């Protein structure tokens, strides 16, 4: 079957792009040098060409590597969370950003950052925790108002409720940050997303929930596959619907929260990538979610590299790529096929 081959190919492509992205920047470093530095610093192995100036090593290890890793982990988390939400809600337009999950996480994270214990909170994962609580609260609100699980939910109403909640929380986020004296640029970079703040300590605080939630969610495709046919049919296919929905929502919220706490509000990755995966391997989440992880990592890494080179928040780039893609998807859906 094609899925494992695509996964291996995707992982290799991702590694290659990561090496190029590490070398890319105001101080350009050749790919060979990047590999040499990484092999030496990470694995203690000497690989030619062995040229390792202290400056290049410090740029690679201190400045670029954490940012590139953050882009990979955040992209994977958002794409897998988006794919899971789409399967769970049977809704091609669902993703953490559209449903307000990201905004909830952002508000939680902002409150934690702006509390007087801010710095300590980062170290202890307090921001992650606050973001997770915010994400769960917003998911709970959207679920309740849209009547998900009651058997009466409507696709449009879920999206409208998500939109309302997302707008409300984004406004509250701006108010909270303004009231606390944060400058507009800081607020802007959080609302539009950015990986500028991805330093080693922050990455370390986010890495465990990011990796664990994303991996566990990507491995829950079997349960999510049943939901493609609806809740009732999922039960007939042996899925414990209430239990699996709770687990999937919790994991998707945790992945989103960890991603948002690290990188702010980045849209479209969770929406677009799972659809690309479906075009390649069909709708079964067992194939879609792992491939989405690789695809999301690749997309956000590329978008962040472009964002770095022209100095804009990465959310601007993902929107510039993602929004036209979404329009194309909607157009195709209207003309008869796909989504």
């Amino acid at each position: 079957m094609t899925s494992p081959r695509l996964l291996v190919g995707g992982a290799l492509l991702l590694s290659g792009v990561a090496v190029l992205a590490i070398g890319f920047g105001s101080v350009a470093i050749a790919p060979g040098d990047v590999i040499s530095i990484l092999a030496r610093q990470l694995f203690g192995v000497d690989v030619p060409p062995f040229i390792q100036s202290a400056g290049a090593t410090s740029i690679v290890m201190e400045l670029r590597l954490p940012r590139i890793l953050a882009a990979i982990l955040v992209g994977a988390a958002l794409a897998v969370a988006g794919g899971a939400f789409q399967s769970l809600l049977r809704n091609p337009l669902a993703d953490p950003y559209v449903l307000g999950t990201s905004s909830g996480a952002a508000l939680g994270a902002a409150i934690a950052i702006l509390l007087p214990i801010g710095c300590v909170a980062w170290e202890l994962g307090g921001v992650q925790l606050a973001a997770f609580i915010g994400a769960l609260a917003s998911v709970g609100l959207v679920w309740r108002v849209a009547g998900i699980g009651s058997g009466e939910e409507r696709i449009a109403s879920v999206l409208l409720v998500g939109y309302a909640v997302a707008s409300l929380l984004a406004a509250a986020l701006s108010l909270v940050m303004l009231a606390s004296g944060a400058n507009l640029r800081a607020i802007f970079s959080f609302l539009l997303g950015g990986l500028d703040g991805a330093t080693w300590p922050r990455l370390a605080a986010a890495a465990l929930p990011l990796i664990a939630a994303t991996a566990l969610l990507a491995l829950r495709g079997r349960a999510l596959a049943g939901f493609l046919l609806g809740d009732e049919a999922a039960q007939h296919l042996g899925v414990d619907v209430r239990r699996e929905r709770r687990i999937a929502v919790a994991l998707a919220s945790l992945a989103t929260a960890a991603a948002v706490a690290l990188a702010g509000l980045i849209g479209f990755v969770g929406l677009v990538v799972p659809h690309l995966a479906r075009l390649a391997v069909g709708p079964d989440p067992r194939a879609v979610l792992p491939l989405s992880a690789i695809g999301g990592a690749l997309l956000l890494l590329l978008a962040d590299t472009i964002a770095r080179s022209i100095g804009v928040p990465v959310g601007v780039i993902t929107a510039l790529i993602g929004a036209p893609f979404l329009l194309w998807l909607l157009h195709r859906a209207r003309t008869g096929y796909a989504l």
Partner: protein
Amino acid sequence: MQIDPSYELIGARNVRVEIGGKLILDEINLKIGVGERVAIVGANGAGKTSLLRALSGTLPVASGEVILCTEPLSGLSRATIARSIAVVGADLVLPFATRADELVALGRLPHGRGPSGPTAHDRERAAAALERVGASHLAARDVRTLSAGEKQLIAIALGLAQETPILALDEPTVHLDLKHRVEIADLLVSLADRARTVVAIFHEIDMVRQLFPRVILMKSGRIVADGSPESVLTVARIAYAWGIPPERASRL
């Protein structure tokens, strides 16, 4: 394989179901054995779909007991139930483009574990199920572009891929034209054998008379009659169950 004829594949003992305080099913008693072909008939709102849901464990019972393959349903896991009874729903609505063979392979979900799949064996079973309903030529088509009759074939194949001793269907011929109704009905007759029991909700009384050796007639959440079509579908009972004048019912 020898199967004990007294083996109770589906049973209900004084089953009562309430939703939000409203009585949906009451005093349901029945026993369905191996290889039977049973039609459930009745007016809209008589409780036919609720009965299927109670028997397959998606509608909790307020009191009484449902038996599935000789065991109390309440003690079985969802996966175990899904390996015993496949339920083919009334319609198939899919959120994403889905090939018919991909969809039918989802019928293998209760038979596997772990994150990977569908396996080569699952695909093989799915292909066999598609062939059994005569829909192999639709394997690569997007299910959402199929006609209502073709969709129904795919839905039945999905149920067959579950490889359960019981196949339950909720109005399998609704919205279909005459040709497809006849096709589906003939298929259901051919599917019921010693290894597979078929229970179906049906609206067409004439078709039920011809095809089902046993008929369960429902009204207002209760079983009114249960037996051969001749004994169950009398003019008086039809008139009573559907609320139509006897002189009109005699012409059905």
